[in-house]
C-alpha cells in the first residue's frame, strides 16, 4: 500500500521504482523460500481437512477404526439437511455468534487501550504492565479456568466474599452469569497478546511522521486516523480475524469451568460438535457441525480477509 511507503525519506521516490520492479520476479527464489512453510502447513492441515469434509457426507461412527472411514456409507447431504432443520443448531449458532462477538469486541478494545496507554507511561510503569500481561499470557487456559472456577466458587470463592454474596450466589447456574464468567476468563487471557502485538505495531510508527502531521496542523484524532491507523492496520486486521477464529472455538474454558459436563445452554458449536463426535459417536454429524462453523466464520471474516489480501497483495 502507498501508506506503507510513507516511512521512506522523501527524495527516494524516483530511485526506488526501477530496482523494485526488477526484484519482483525472482524466478525460483520465492517458491524456494515459501516451500518449507507451505509443506508443513499442507501436511498438517490439508489432508486431514479433506478427510473431514468427506466424512461430513458419510454416516460414520467408528472412531477407533479409522481405516473403515472413507469406505463408509455415503449419505449425501443428509447430515446437512438434518442439521439445518434442527432448531438446536440455530440456537447454538446464535449463542456462538453473540458470545464470540462480545469476546472479540472486548479483547480488541481493551487490548488497543492498553497498547495506547503503554505509549503514554514512563518506562518503569510500562515494565510493570508488560510483566503482568506476559505473566497472564503464559498461564495455560486449563489452569486459568481452574483459578476462575475457584474464585467464582459459591462457597469458597473470593468474588462472593468481596461482593458480599458469600455462600448465596452460584455463578455457574444461570445462562447470563455463566457466560459472563466464560467471557471474563477468555478476555482476561486474550488481552495480553492483543496489547503486546498492538504495542509492537505502534512502535513502528515513526515519530517524525507524527510530528510532521502535527506541525501541519493535524489534531490528535486526525493524526490517529491518517498517520497511525494505516501503519498499524495489518496488525489490527490479523488480530481481529484471529480473535474471531479463536473465540468461535472456545473450548477448554467452557469444558473445564463446568467440570467437563456443560449444560446445553453453555454449548457453542465447538462443544456441541465434540459432544456429538466423542461422546455420542456420531462423527459424521460432528464433522458437519464443524464444516458449518467454518463456513460461518469465513462469512464473518471475509471483509477482514479481503483487506488483508489487499495489503499482503502488494509486493515491494
Amino acid at each position, binding site marked *: 500500500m502507498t501508506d506503507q511507503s510513507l516511512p521512506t525519506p522523501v527524495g527516494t521516490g524516483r530511485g526506488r521504482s526501477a530496482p523494485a520492479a526488477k526484484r519482483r520476479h525472482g524466478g525460483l527464489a*520465492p*517458491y524456494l523460500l515459501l516451500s518449507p*512453510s507451505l509443506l508443513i502447513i499442507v501436511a498438517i492441515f490439508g489432508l486431514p481437512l479433506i478427510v473431514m469434509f468427506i466424512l461430513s457426507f458419510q454416516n460414520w461412527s467408528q472412531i477407533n477404526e479409522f481405516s473403515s472411514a472413507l469406505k463408509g456409507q455415503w449419505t449425501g447431504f443428509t447430515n446437512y439437511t438434518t442439521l439445518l432443520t434442527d432448531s438446536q443448531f440455530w440456537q447454538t449458532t446464535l449463542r456462538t455468534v453473540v458470545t464470540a462477538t462480545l469476546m472479540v469486541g472486548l479483547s480488541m478494545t481493551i487490548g488497543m487501550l492498553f497498547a495506547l496507554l503503554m505509549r503514554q507511561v514512563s518506562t518503569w510503569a510500562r*515494565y510493570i504492565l508488560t510483566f503482568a500481561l506476559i505473566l497472564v499470557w503464559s498461564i*495455560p487456559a486449563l489452569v486459568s479456568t481452574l483459578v476462575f472456577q*475457584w474464585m467464582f466458587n459459591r462457597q469458597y470463592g473470593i468474588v462472593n466474599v468481596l461482593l458480599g454474596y458469600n455462600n448465596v450466589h452460584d455463578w455457574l447456574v444461570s445462562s447470563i452469569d455463566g457466560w459472563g464468567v466464560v467471557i471474563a476468563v477468555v478476555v482476561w487471557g486474550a488481552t495480553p497478546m492483543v496489547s503486546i502485538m498492538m504495542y*509492537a505495531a505502534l512502535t513502528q510508527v515513526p515519530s517524525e511522521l507524527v510530528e510532521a502531521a502535527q506541525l501541519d496542523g493535524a489534531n490528535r484524532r486526525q493524526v490517529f486516523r491518517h498517520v497511525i491507523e494505516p501503519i498499524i492496520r495489518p496488525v489490527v486486521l490479523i488480530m481481529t480475524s484471529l480473535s474471531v477464529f479463536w473465540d468461535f472455538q472456545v473450548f477448554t474454558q467452557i469444558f473445564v469451568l463446568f467440570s467437563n459436563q456443560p449444560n446445553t445452554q453453555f454449548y457453542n458449536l465447538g462443544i456441541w460438535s465434540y459432544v456429538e463426535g466423542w461422546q455420542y459417536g456420531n462423527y459424521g454429524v460432528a464433522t458437519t457441525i*464443524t464444516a458449518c462453523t467454518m463456513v460461518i466464520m*469465513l462469512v464473518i471474516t471475509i471483509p477482514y480477509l479481503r483487506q488483508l489480501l489487499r495489503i499482503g497483495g502488494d*509486493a515491494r
Partner: protein
Amino acid sequence: MSSSTAFTPAATGVLGSESKDASAARVAVARPRSRRKQYVRWFFNLVAVAIAMVWIFPIYWMLLVSMTPIGSIYSIHPQLLPSGVTWFAFSQVLHDPDFWTAFRNSVIVTFSTVVISTFVGFLAATAIARFRFRFRNSAIVLIMIVQMVPLIALIVPLFYIYSKIGLSESLFGLVIGMLALSLPFCIWTLRGFVAGVPADLEEAAMVDGCTRVGAFFRIILPLVLPGIVSTAIYTLIQTWTEFQLTNFMISDQNHFTLPLYLNHFLSANQQILYNEIMATALLMAAPIVILFLLVQRQVASGLTAGAVKG
C-alpha cells in the same frame, strides 16, 4: 485515553533519540504546559499500575492457594492476605522426577519450534513481502484460512496419518504439529516487518560495498528484530502451553510435556490438589516470564523499531 496528551513529543520520545532535539525545542516554547504534562503522565502511570494489579489478581490468587496447606484451602472465609505460608506444594512438585522429565521435553519441543518457526516463517515472509509470483495470493489465502480450522476436527484424521508414518508418540512429530500451528501467524506478522524495510536500504548497503548476506545481517535483521522477537514470544508461549494437540499425539508418560503433566496430575488424584496444581502452573510460567524480561530489555535498549528511516 488517547484524548489528552496523545502523541506529544514527550510521549513519542520512546521511539528513538532522533526526536530529542525537536522535542527539546518544543518543550522550550511550551514551558507552561510541561508541568501539566507531568501530572498527566503520573496519572497514566497510576492507571497502568492499577490495571496491572487487576490483571495479575488471579495469578496472585494462584500464588496464595499454592502457599496454603491443602486443609485450609476449603475455608468458608477466604482471606485476601495469606495467614500461614508454606512452600510445601512447590517442594513437592520440584522433587517429582516426572516434573523434570516433562520440563525437559517441553524445553526441547519449544526451543526447536521457536527456532525453526522463526527461520522458516521469515523465509516465507520475505517471499510474500518482496516478490511477485504465481500462486502468491493463493498462498496468502491458504495461510489465513488454515487458522480457522478447528483442531478437534483435525485430530482424528491427523492421528491416523501420524500412526501410519510412525510419527505419533515422538517429540519430532509434535514439533511438526506445533510448527503448523504457529507458522501462519509468524509468516503474517513477519511479512509486515519485512515490508516495512524499504528495499532501497538493502540496495544502498550493497552499493556501499556490503555483500547480500552482509546487508541482511547489518541492515535488514536489526530493523525486523522487533518483529522477530514478538513472533518468537508468540510461538514460545503457544508451544509451551499447547494442550489439545499434544494430548492426542502423546500418551507415553516419558514424552509428556508440562501441560500434559499438569493434566495427568489433575486426573490422577481423587481430590483436586489445588495447591500443587497452582504451584506447578506458576513454575511453568516462570521461565517464560524470565525470558521475556531479558528480551524486553534488549529490545527497549535501542534496537527499537521506528528506526525504519533510511
